[in-house]
């Protein structure tokens, strides 16, 4: 009996604490992702009770809160450590980037295995998808804050600080420093706009002139898909709806991409100016910046820029004294889901749901956020728009090519002397880019990230642009020493981890591709397995529901076509090898019995 009453009062206590935490979080922002983030921070996990309380408080179906909690990588149902350490697993900023397994190293120092929380609750460690620090060497997030330039001595010191339970404020501040690393500036990065200058210029024009300038400029979406920005805005303006919305996609999740990190850090005013131009053109009163959870550390800065713009009457009611021109921007922060970079999944996430891409048509320009006409554009697209309004479409068209006007901001990483941000006119050759970043002797370049195109050295004269090599901005260089199969395996793991699970081809296919590549890389693959990879990859590419699935198999298909030897040299030279590996199957038993002698193996 006594036990029961103690449990009861504990439960009542817990629920009381939970409720006040939820109320406090809601006062800050009632967005489901934000409330769950606050609870994750405070209680280090989101328990079933917390899910129930959040559902009740926000008047949402319990299943929705539960589903969201399970969908996003940064929410956990079991407690994480007071220091929650997430190593990037990207090929450029990941824990293997320097050739040494830094995560295993920290694991040994802290006596912890990746994926677990230490029994004393002090620390948890895991890997996460690219955190956008690819120009800074190996990187990790500790309680959401990025630490870059990892090496073994830094790992040692991190372990010591964790064991000493030193607060993050007392860790060396230079560890958290993130530089812009702008190496080549072009149209957009050359000079920053004076705050508000674009809007003042725009107000001299009317809506039709603003739209026509954007259309005339030939600006196309910088996320990679390349739809005409002006046409998108016009479709949205013409669409009927109770409200129109402007959404900036700052969910920069493509491994190897970090240009939006730099724009958000150093050109946030131009970005918000571009969003405000869009609001004027489409007739929107409300905008959202959807910031990836990995960039949460930029939130205070972005909030302060928004606050300053409100003070300067560049946001809010009657902007710059223009009667009826009212617009404001809220920031919604994601929680670790690459799929939310897909515009309709992003909108679902904005609405507080799992990031599942919608059926299209209808498209967001007619049925977007809350079913209303919505423009979703990339960060870079908005700053380009802000510049175009100020300087005119001809200025923009003067650079680039016929079909790809203007410039492209590239995030360059991998095997090169000076990784960083490079802005080029469209039409630049890969060779030029490689020369500039000091990439000597590259064997391959991944253009546009894992979802883009893997090219070999014979193709380095190809040009960046929508009519040849399209890119959202990631450019990863692989030198001669790189094991390309390891790179392709890494990408296959990435897509299997990030697949939302909605459609069969992507949900099952990305897992099959991951497993099949593992078999080949592990030295157990045959010619048959290569054919299987080709078959599954083609199906995933052609039959998946959204862009994630349709591009997930690209590294494998490109690899098989351009670098067949990287697969073939690992093959076993007979026709068939079973998937089931007797020796590997004993691994768990070996771990449990702490044996690794010859008799514990079957060869």
């Amino acid at each position, binding site marked *: 009996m006594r036990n029961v009453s103690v449990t009861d009062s504990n439960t009542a206590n817990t629920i009381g604490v939970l409720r006040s935490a939820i109320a406090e979080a809601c006062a800050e922002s009632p967005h489901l992702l934000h409330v769950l983030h606050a609870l994750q921070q405070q209680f280090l996990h989101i328990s079933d009770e917390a899910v129930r309380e959040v559902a009740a408080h926000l008047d949402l179906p319990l299943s929705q809160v539960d589903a969201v909690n*399970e969908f996003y990588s940064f929410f956990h149902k079991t407690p994480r450590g007071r220091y929650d350490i997430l190593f990037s697993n990207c090929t450029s900023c990941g824990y293997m980037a320097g050739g040494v397994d830094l995560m295993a190293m920290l694991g040994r120092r802290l006596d912890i295995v990746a994926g677990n929380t230490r029994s004393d609750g002090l620390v948890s460690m895991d890997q996460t998808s690219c955190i956008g620090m690819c120009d800074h060497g190996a990187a990790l997030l500790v309680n959401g804050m990025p630490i870059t330039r990892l090496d073994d001595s830094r790992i040692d010191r991190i372990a010591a600080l964790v064991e000493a339970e030193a607060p993050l404020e007392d860790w060396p501040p230079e560890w958290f420093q993130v530089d812009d690393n702008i190496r080549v500036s072009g149209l957009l990065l050359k000079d920053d706009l004076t705050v508000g200058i674009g809007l003042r210029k725009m107000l001299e024009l009317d809506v039709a002139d603003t739209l026509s300038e954007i259309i005339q400029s030939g600006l196309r979406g910088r996320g990679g898909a390349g739809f005409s920005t002006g046409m998108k805005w016009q479709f949205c303006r013409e669409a009927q709806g109770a409200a129109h919305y402007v959404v900036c996609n700052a969910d920069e999740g493509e491994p190897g991409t970090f240009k939006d990190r730099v724009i958000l850090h150093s050109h946030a005013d131009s970005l918000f100016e571009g969003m405000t131009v869009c609001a004027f053109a489409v007739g929107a009163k409300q905008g959202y910046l959807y910031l990836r959870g990995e960039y949460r550390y930029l939130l205070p800065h972005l909030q302060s820029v928004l606050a300053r713009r409100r003070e300067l009457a560049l946001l809010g009611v009657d902007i710059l004294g223009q009667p009826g021109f009212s617009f404001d921007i809220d920031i919604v922060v994601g929680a670790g889901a690459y*799929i939310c970079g897909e515009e309709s999944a992003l909108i679902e996430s904005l609405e507080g749901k799992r990031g599942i891409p919608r059926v299209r*048509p209808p498209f967001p320009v007619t049925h977007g956020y809350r079913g209303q006409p919505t423009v979703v554009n990339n960060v870079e697209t908005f700053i380009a728009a802000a510049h175009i309004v100020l300087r005119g479409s001809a200025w923009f068209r003067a650079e680039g090519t016929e079909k790809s006007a203007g410039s492209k901001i590239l995030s360059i990483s991998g095997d090169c002397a000076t990784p960083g941000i490079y802005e080029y006119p469209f039409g630049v050759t890969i060779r030029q880019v490689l020369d500039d970043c000091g990439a000597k002797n590259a064997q391959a370049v991944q253009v546009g990230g894992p979802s883009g195109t893997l090219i070999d050295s014979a193709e380095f004269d190809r040009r960046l642009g929508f009519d040849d090599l399209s890119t959202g901005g990631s450019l990863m260089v692989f030198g001669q020493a790189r094991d390309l199969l390891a790179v392709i395996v890494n990408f296959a793991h990435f897509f299997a981890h*990030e*697949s939302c699970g909605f459609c069969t081809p992507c*949900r099952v296919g990305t*897992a099959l591709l991951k497993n099949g590549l593992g078999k080949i890389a592990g030295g157990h693959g045959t010619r048959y397995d290569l054919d299987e990879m080709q078959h599954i990859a083609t*199906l995933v590419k052609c039959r998946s529901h959204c862009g994630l699935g349709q591009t997930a198999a690209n590294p494998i298909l490109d690899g098989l076509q351009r670098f067949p030897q990287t697969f073939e040299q690992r093959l076993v030279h007979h026709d068939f090898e079973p998937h089931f590996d007797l020796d590997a199957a004993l691994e768990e038993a070996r771990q449990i019995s702490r044996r690794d002698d010859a008799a514990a193996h079957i060869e």
Partner: protein
Amino acid sequence: MSADTTQNPITQNTITIDGQEIPFVAGQTIMDAALAAGVYIPHLCHKPGLTPHGSCKLCVVDIASRSVSSHNSDRRVQAKFQVVADSRSVSACTMPAVAGQQISNNTPALNEVRKTITQMLFIEGNHICPSCEKCGDCTLQAMAYHLGMLDGHFPQFLQRRAVDASHPTVMLDRDRCILCELCVRASREVDGKNVFAIAGRGINAHLIVNSASGKLVDSDLETSDMAAHICPVGAILIKEHGYEVPIGRRTFDLHQVGEIGSEEIILTKVRHADE
């Protein structure tokens, strides 16, 4: 849309599926128009009357690119035997019918794709056809026969999935769930409840129950709900009514999965006489 197509009154309100001209009315999907015309497009997550979902991808069809859609006479022959290179893949259940669409559906290449997708559904779950209560009444199993699937082909994923036997009359075995969300939609759209949802992501996506304990017994699911009967596989089962119909007289012993109107037959079949 080419000028040729818009000016031609015959193609104005028709689409062409495997060479057969099929009328449609505005607002219909390719699937709606096909079923109305008695043309079967394989599907698992689609059920007329519920919001189209487009997740299982069994209903993938190829639409020839518009630039070549006007001269179709020899394409019809080609489409029977190969994937049209200059075409795009869409889900028939969600894609609106648009006048002049030249659609490939019942082709060996597409049926091969569908067979592979069906195999994927089999190997990601834990299916026990010979001993499953739904054997012979299962649309997934019938689809496998329809497409000539002889094995799972891929290595089994052997995932651990939870069983929920808490409800007095309804059983939930996630081992056999194919994530089609028919129960999710039936509960919301027909039963006026919200009993089911999908949680998790990627290969870890799974069906959850909207109740405080996460158990079916604490939900407001009732045996008379459509959500309790709509499962195309053996994931949601009515208790104490398994194996009542002998082999040889079960739904797909008597009917083909490709019969038009089989949805109604299936639903009637699984509803017990005394309900």
